[in-house]
Each structure stands twice: as C-alpha cells, then as structure tokens.
C-alpha cells in the first residue's frame, strides 16, 4: 500500500546526498574562498568552531595537554655528541634568535598561512654539542611521555628547522607545544615535536609516534603522505 501525498521525503533525502557529493567535490575550493574572504578578527573565537579554514586545530596524544612552567622547563641535547648539555628556558631564549614566517600545514589538510615562529636554529644547538661521526639521525622526545619524532642529521641541519619558543610574537602556549617545541618548516605539522624536552643524537632514524600510526618518516609538505600541497618552505 502506498501512503497518500507526494514522495517529497525521498526527494529531500536524495537532494541532501547530492548536496553532500557536491560538497566533497568542491568543498576544498569553497573553504579556500571563505578563508580568504571572511574577516579575520573574531574576539569571541567562536568562528574557530566553524569549518571555514585557516586556524589551528590542537592535537594531543595523552590525557590533556602537558603543562610545564617556563621556570621548570629544561632542554637536553645528548646521545652521540662530544659535549652533552642542558638548557633552561632563559638560556634558550638568550641564544641568537631566528625568525621564520611560513605556512603551517597539517597532514589532515588544514593550513595556517604566515605563522611567525621565533626560536633557535637546531644546527646551532648541534654545533655546540659536537655531533660525533657516527651520529646520523636525531630523536626528539616530548615531556608528555609519549610523543617522539625523528629527523636525519641532514634534515636537522637545514636553516628552516628551529627549536621554537614563540608564535606570532607571544610565548608558546601549552596548546601549541610550549614552553618550546620543534618547528620543521618544510614538513607536515606532526614532524614538529611539541613539548620538546630532549634531543638525542643517534646512529639511525627511529620512527616517531605518528610514523608508527602510518604517516611517512620523511614528511615533506607536498611530497609525502600522498598529498600535493604547495611547499611551506623551499
């Protein structure tokens, strides 16, 4: 038996599915448009809840975001080095700073343009420690107790790889990986180990947390993980 009336329900259902299919095909373009044309100023922060593009999403792999006050923060460089050392937060900030203004690209698709990072070149810290001949890779350890990352020595010596302590002119918040984190400008965000407390020089690349989850060890933006984003740093 058929009910009286017109089959509007089916049409609305199919219409919604069709709209969703169009959204999958053209959503990337629409999101780029809204990111470019919507006003950036939003004191409430509510627009961050809407998928209009251009904002950080915060990921943590443990319970909550690890917090450490700057006065309790320490960064150790050790492993296959001649002179292992530990820096306090103030000592880190006293080193010659490097400023990088680059896009921040996540492997899940979001990108924040023109983020301004302040920090110390990783190569500078490695120079000071004196990498031994058999030291060919680095292992980064987060004080959250879980997050680790890796780079080859050649990648680590690039001028656009820093230990960052400020973002857009303000001290790095806990959400962003503060007091200090790695910032690997030419690679996807997961390579930039947050809440950095230890840099260990090792003799082979030990894949980090997200690499164990299936992401590429060499996380170049636009040349890995099956993505073709525009590079964030040449």
């Amino acid at each position, binding site marked *: *038996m*058929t*009910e*009286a*009336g*017109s*089959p*509007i*329900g*089916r049409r*609305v*259902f199919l219409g*919604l*599915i069709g709209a*969703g299919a169009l*959204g*999958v*095909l*053209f*959503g*990337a*373009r*629409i*999101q780029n448009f809204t990111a470019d044309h919507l006003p950036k100023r939003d004191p409430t922060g509510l627009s*961050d*809840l*809407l*998928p209009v593009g251009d904002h*950080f*999403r*915060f*990921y*943590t*792999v*443990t*319970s*909550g*975001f690890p917090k450490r006050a700057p006065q309790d923060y320490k960064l150790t460089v050790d492993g296959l080095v001649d002179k292992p050392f530990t820096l306090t937060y103030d000592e880190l900030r006293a080193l010659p700073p490097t400023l990088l203004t680059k896009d921040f690209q996540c492997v*899940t*698709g979001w990108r924040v343009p023109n983020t301004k990072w302040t920090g110390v070149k990783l190569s500078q810290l490695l120079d000071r420690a004196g990498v031994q001949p058999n030291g060919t890779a680095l292992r980064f350890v987060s004080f959250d107790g879980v997050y680790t990352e890796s780079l080859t020595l050649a990648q680590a010596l690039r001028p656009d790889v820093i230990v960052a302590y400020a973002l857009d002119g303000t001290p790095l918040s806990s*959400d962003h990986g503060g007091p200090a984190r790695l910032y690997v400008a030419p690679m996807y965000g997961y390579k930039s180990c947050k809440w950095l407390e230890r840099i260990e020089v090792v003799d082979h690349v030990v894949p980090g947390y997200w690499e164990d*989850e299936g992401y590429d060890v060499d996380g170049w933006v636009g040349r890995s993980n*099956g*993505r*073709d*984003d525009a590079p964030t740093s040449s």
Partner: protein
Amino acid sequence: MSATASTPTRYLPRFDRVERVVHWCNATLFLTLVFTGASLYVSQLSTLVGHRHTVKTIHVYAGLLLPIPLLFGILIPGGRQLRRDLSRINRWTDDDRRWWSRRTRASAQLGKFNPGQKLNAVFVGAAIVLMLTTGSIMRWFEPFPDNIRTGATWVHDWTFIALVVVIVGHIMFALGDVDSLRSIFFGSVRESWARRERPRWWAEMISESAESRSAGGDVETGGDERIGEATVGTGEMPVGD
C-alpha cells in the same frame, strides 16, 4: 469537554518494539559519535579530553556501526511497521503543507507524523549516509587526492554542526511533549492525544481496529490490508476537545 473525560484513559500503539530498539540504538550511537567527534574537532574539548588515539578509535567503530540498527530493522520480517512508517515519512500531503504556515496550521489534519518529524527523519537518514561516506574517506584517505580529502572533511564538519542543531532540537521538542516521549519509551500514546494531534492517524487506527474486530478478532492485520485513507480521505473530521 467531551464524554471521554469520565471513561478510563485509552491508549493507541504508536511505536512497536523494533522501532523503539532501532531508535535507542541510533540514539546511543549518535551521542557517542557527537561526543567523541566534538572531542576531536573542538580545540577546547581536545585539550580537556586528550587521548586522541583512543577517542578516534571509538569514533571510527561507532561510525561503522551507525547504519546497522536501521538496516537491520528494515530488513527483518518484524520490521513491517518500521517500513510502513518510513513510507509515511516519505509522503507529504496537502495537510503537511498547511501545517508549515502558522495561519493555516489549525486546519491541517495530520497523519502519524508531523512535517517537522518527517524532515528530521529524512535529514538524519541522509546524514548517516553522508557521515559514513565522508568519514570513510577521512579514515582511509590514501587513494583520494587532496581536494577530495579536504572536501570530505568539509562536508563532515558542516554536517556535524547541522546534526548537533537537529539533535538538540529533536530532544527539546520531545521533552515538551509527554505523549510523544511516552511512546518512544513504552510504545503507546493516549487516544485523546492522537485524536487531537494526529486526527488522520487516529481515524486510521480506529477503523483498523473496527476492521479487525469485524474480521473475527484477527489482530494480525498486515500493512497491506489496511484501509486508512479510503475512509478518512476527505479532511473533514471531528477534532477532539
């Protein structure tokens, strides 16, 4: 008041057991998905909840289970009433159109569901398909190019926001209507409610029970044998109270 005030309250069955089980399975899965999804999506909640990997795993499995209760209910033999109600949700009558406007709402003789409920059901059904498809693209992303991954994420995000609005609205409307609420927990509504709020459905039910009595007390009235519209199709019906 009508004479029914002195007689004991009579009830009409509105949702059978299959429909109620499907509804509450869906509700549990949707709430799980909304909570875990919000924890992955809203930065402030991500900060509070953490455990990203565990939350993501729960979200993915709950998502894969999402279409199962409804499909199960539709496919089993006992899902006859669910299938008939889906057909009711599909059909929009002139009375439904009158209901949307405040001016003509009083003259709308509704069937089992009001148009808002029909729209809610259609949206949730479409949302299940959309969320499952786009979520699968997000989870098993390797074969898809960037713009499709971003597009799928975009659709997933906006549909999520729409779903939160719709689910909150659904719960608020339900809490405002004791009879509706009673029927999704226990299955039946007061006959006086049906007569007042859903006169066309009420008339169907009355004529069907009269039919089954005259057929020798056979209560196994199949969906195909019902004669609802034939007797109450004119729209001129006494409204209770």
